[in-house]
């Protein structure tokens, strides 16, 4: 059974076809990357998968269950959690609270437990706090738990966003250009962290521009160009694929930017 399956996915914006008849299967386990030159439709594809926008045509399946057109919160509840290309933190909250929000799907309690602080509610808060600290430890931000998220350096904001997404216990973690704005060293650290996430059995879907990161991190790579899916393979296969080389180096490149 595939974890994620796209069937003939198409999205048009007026006259522009951002994603053009993409069919793709993502198997469980490891890291799959989707790459492509600027404007290849990577982020649009990502938004289609996560429910942020609806496809013009085609269907999306998670565990063979159709999720096409479902709102993002329902898709998250089914186990697909994403991050954003432009970091979307809760800027005025502390680092710790950001991660605590991530536990929403796996906690209970509404107004009654908020007002009366029952023993059960307190126990759950305790667990939320422990889990959030664990995740901060995992991404190396534990010492910043009480810092306001907005004042973190950009690289750490990205790590925080990943910790927060992990708090939602995804089975498929989708990262939208997580290396954007990171320096070489930060990018290397990120790569190691993505591998550690995958080692825990969480499938990682990576949309990325940074070829170094992709080649060092991904097990499988799918390549998009002009909204079309032009190749799939291991990093070595992709490096040698003539269609990919054309897309990245050919004379088309100039017109993409």
């Amino acid at each position, binding site marked *: 059974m595939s974890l994620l399956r796209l069937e003939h996915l198409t999205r048009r914006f007026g006259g522009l076809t951002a994603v053009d008849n993409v069919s793709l299967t993502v198997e469980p386990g490891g890291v799959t990357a989707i790459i492509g030159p600027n404007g290849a439709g990577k982020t649009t594809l990502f938004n289609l998968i996560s429910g942020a926008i609806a496809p013009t045509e085609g269907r999306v399946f998670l565990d063979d269950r159709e999720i096409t057109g479902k709102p993002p919160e329902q898709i*998250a509840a089914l186990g697909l959690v994403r991050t954003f290309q432009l970091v979307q933190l809760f800027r*005025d909250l502390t680092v710790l609270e950001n991660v605590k*929000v991530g536990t929403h799907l796996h906690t209970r309690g509404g107004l009654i437990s*908020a007002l009366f602080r029952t023993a059960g509610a307190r126990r759950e808060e305790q667990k939320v706090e422990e889990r959030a600290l664990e995740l901060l430890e995992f991404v190396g931000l534990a010492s910043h*738990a009480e810092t306001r998220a907005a004042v973190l350096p950009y690289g750490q904001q990205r790590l925080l966003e990943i910790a927060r997404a992990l708090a939602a216990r995804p089975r498929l973690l989708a990262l939208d250009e997580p290396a954007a704005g990171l320096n070489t060293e930060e990018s290397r650290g990120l790569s190691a962290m993505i591998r550690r996430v995958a080692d825990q059995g969480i499938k990682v879907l990576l949309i990325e521009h940074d070829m170094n990161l992709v080649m060092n991190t991904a097990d499988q790579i799918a390549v998009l160009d002009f909204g079309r899916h032009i190749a799939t393979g291991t990093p070595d296969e992709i490096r040698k694929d003539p269609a990919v080389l054309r897309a990245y180096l050919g004379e088309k490149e100039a017109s993409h930017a």
Partner: protein
Amino acid sequence: MTTLPATTSSDSRHYAGLLVPWAVAAAALIYAYNAGGYIISVANFALIYAIFVTGLNIFMGFAGQVSFGQNAFAGISGYMSAVLTTTYGWPPLAGVAAGVVGAMLAAAILGYPTLRLKGHYLAMATLALGLIVYEVAVEWDSVTAGYMGISGIPPLGVGGFEVYSDQAMLIMLATLAALGALAAAGIRNSRIGRAFVAIAGSEEAARALGINVSRYKLAAFVISAVYAAIAGSLFVHVVGFVSPEVFGLHMVVLAFTMLYVGGIGTVLGPVIGAIIITALPEVIRDFKDYQDLAYGAVLILILIYMPRGLASLPELWRQWRDDSRRRAS
């Protein structure tokens, strides 16, 4: 867990900082209690507004939405309670309960379509809610007595005990305002409160983490309306009189000023704001002709130097300290 010791010590200082406003509020109330007369009516008024603004803050400060129309729910509840207790002879507590439930239902029904709007559009739509309730109060003469208003509304009471004296009312209102603030604190530090502040931070990110944004917005709106409804009913029973002006646009302007001056998004800000803004005209009365000028100047100074309100003073101090520490390292 190498970080724990540092966190704990800054926490305890943080909590000590939180006690200051409570102490100031308590001192102000004790002063009012002893002063009696006019001063105590001013304090009662401030406390009713503290409840109203605490609710407004849950919708605006926590969930990051905007409503210029929470006065509608104070009006619905206040009028229901007034009419039921005078015309129909209900006991006051039953009148209040009916008013609060009525306002709550109205908020749920009106909020459902209205909250699809965002930003300025939401502001305009909620403003309309307040204006509609005002118009109904004016025009539905046979029930509300129009501009004349309803007088002779009985004070609150349980069994034979009536909250009649100014002092008793002060104690009752102070207790309710404190409970209201504690409830808001409980909400803020819970799962539901985190969902609210997440929506304020980024709706997109909140949804990506599985938060049903429209449901939680409606919840914040209804909770906020319940606070408004309680404040509205308390007002009519404490003052013994209601007219459309009581819940008019002036209420909205006043509540917004209190919210921003006290500190939007903080738990104690609404209480501090309500007390300061109600007391300010009394304090600067000596300026006579320049009273309005002084009032405006004080507001502008607070908003420039403390954009997150008076309640943010301890936080401003901490931030300044963190920043200077970071520069040093």
